[in-house]
């Protein structure tokens, strides 16, 4: 089995369980984002891959070999730390060839490697600079080049872009993705920024409180969130709870909604993204999939219009574009339409 496999991995710090029993497969050559709020165990998971934390139980396999007990310095994985951790006493070039130099690679080969790596991260002719003279983005690139110097089997990054300003971060996200595609290296990035994960990842692993909630490509995470945590953490959503009232029908406060994949009986929660909700003026319509509501507030942001609605006592947010804006104002009675394919049934968190 090629790729990285977690087999029932657990990590405890004393009484506190940072990572609950987790089994996960990361296919080779993929760009994977570990996504979750701070303290969810994503960094601990990454540090266990690097060998910087020992797993309390379970195994980690790389291409079928058990690496759980191999010490960090024998794993040959490249890692970029959140604070980059460039060696302050070395120049850019010396930082980059550090892993080669300690393995006794010749000076000429080291020089060639520096040139190749600096070209790769688009930072040519910087080899002689002291690290302290670099800008944030340049330090970022040097840290990436240093981690890639060994041509590692795994490329690990712990919140690598969090120190950069928003504009630079976006361009680095795209650059990092292109770099990964060029090298075809299995890459695992820890991030709390869902936009970052959506931009870069082939596969997103959503975590909270030491548990993995969902593993899926970004678009699927957005369109088909598995539970309320994922639905709420990725983008914004409306969560509506109700009771199954017949085949494909859900009784909610104020009416009936239609949804696919409904279980036969019981109470469920559905997630409806704001941009999928359609609002029309007048409260006449009361067919299944449509509820009567009242406009409480309209926020016009220019590119989009957010409508805050009160539907049977519940706050519902809908978003539309200026061209589709219904002719309504605060206090008006409206019909709120929930298309069948927009109502995603959530499992237990």
């Amino acid at each position, binding site marked *: 089995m090629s790729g990285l496999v977690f087999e029932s991995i657990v990590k405890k710090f004393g009484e506190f369980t940072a990572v609950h029993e987790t089994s996960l497969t990361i296919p080779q050559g993929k760009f994977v984002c570990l996504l979750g709020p701070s303290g969810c165990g994503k960094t601990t998971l990454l540090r266990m891959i*690097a*060998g*910087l934390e020992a797993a309390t139980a379970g195994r980690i396999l790389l291409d079928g070999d058990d690496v759980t007990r191999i*010490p*960090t*310095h*024998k*794993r*040959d*994985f*490249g*890692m970029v*730390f*959140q*604070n980059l*951790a460039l*060696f*302050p*006493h070395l120049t850019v070039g010396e930082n980059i060839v*550090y*892993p080669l130099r*300690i*393995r006794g690679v010749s000076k000429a080969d080291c020089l060639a490697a520096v040139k190749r790596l600096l070209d790769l991260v688009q930072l040519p002719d910087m080899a002689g600079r*002291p690290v*302290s003279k670099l800008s944030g983005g340049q330090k970022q690139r040097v840290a990436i080049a*240093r*981690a890639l*110097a*060994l041509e590692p089997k795994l490329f*690990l990054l712990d919140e690598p872009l969090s120190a950069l300003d928003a504009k630079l971060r976006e361009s680095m996200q795209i650059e990092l993705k292109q770099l990964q595609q060029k090298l075809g290296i299995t890459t695992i990035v820890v991030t709390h920024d869902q936009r970052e994960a959506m931009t870069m990842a082939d596969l997103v692993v959503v975590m909270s409180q030491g548990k993995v909630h969902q593993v899926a490509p970004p678009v699927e995470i957005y369109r088909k969130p598995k539970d309320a945590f994922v639905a709420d953490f990725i983008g914004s959503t409306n969560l509506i709870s109700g009771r199954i009232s017949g085949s494909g029908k859900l009784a909610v406060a104020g009416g009936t909604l239609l949804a696919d994949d409904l279980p036969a009986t019981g109470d469920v929660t559905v997630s409806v993204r704001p941009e999928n909700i359609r609002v029309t003026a007048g409260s006449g319509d009361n067919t299944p999939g449509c509820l009567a509501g009242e406009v409480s507030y309209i926020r016009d942001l220019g590119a989009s219009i957010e409508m805050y609605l009160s539907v049977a006592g519940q706050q519902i947010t809908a978003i539309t574009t200026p061209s589709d804006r219904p002719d309504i104002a605060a206090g008006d009675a409206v019909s709120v339409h929930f298309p069948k394919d927009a109502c995603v049934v959530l499992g237990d968190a």
Partner: protein
Amino acid sequence: MKIKPRTFSDYASIGFPAGMLMVFFVIPFGIMIAVSFFQRVQGAFYEPAFVFDNYARFLTSFFGGILGFSIGLAALVAVVSVLLAFPFTYILTRMARRTQVVWLVFLLSVLSLSEVLIGFGWSTLLSRTAGISNLLVAVGILDKPMSLSPSFGAVMTGMVYQTFPYTVLVLFPALSRLDPSLVEVARTLGSGPVRSFLNVVVPALRNSIVSTLIMVFVFALGCYLLPQLLGKPSHWTLSVLITDQAIYQSNMPFAAAMAVFLVLVSLSLVAISLLYGKKENAA
């Protein structure tokens, strides 16, 4: 923005520390410098004069040799202390908070021991009848107990014992501020624990190491009891001679001249360390 002091009252806040420095440092030191140029009166004390005799006498080979030995001993003590204390402190800063506190309290209590206690303690430990050599005999390393003091080794042991806690306390803040991810990144790049320590921790803290070396050196240069308690007369330092001249030979001017010289050596070393540190920071 920096506001420049304009009136006399703006300077009032530094009056108290300046006064203390004046009374307890500048004036006594000035008196010592003055005395170092005075003339000794045989059978009496000294009389005011302005002669260089005291400095001239100091430049003979006997006193020159002692000065050389004192500097060499202090340097060796500084190097050994830092070599022992640096890895120790590094490991200590990576331990649990409680362990750190216990060790620091222990080291502080060692620091509170007087030089006399340390000297007599070690001379007992190194003696033939009650000392460590009996343990070595029991283990089978030595054939029969022997006296390990007085000797150069005994002087070194006592002085390193005295300076070690001081060295740990000086290195502790710098080492506990060291970013642990520097070592972790070195490990992910393929260096083992020892190599990471030598390649990353030591160079990243070379400023602290140099300044600690100099501080311990200056501290050891003033040591005068331990060489007498644990060493032979050939292991006596300049500080011992200064005491001898001042108290037993009643030759204040000569003692003052030697003391001034010792202070100048210490000050120039501190100045060098400051210059070195400035250059490092500018880079």
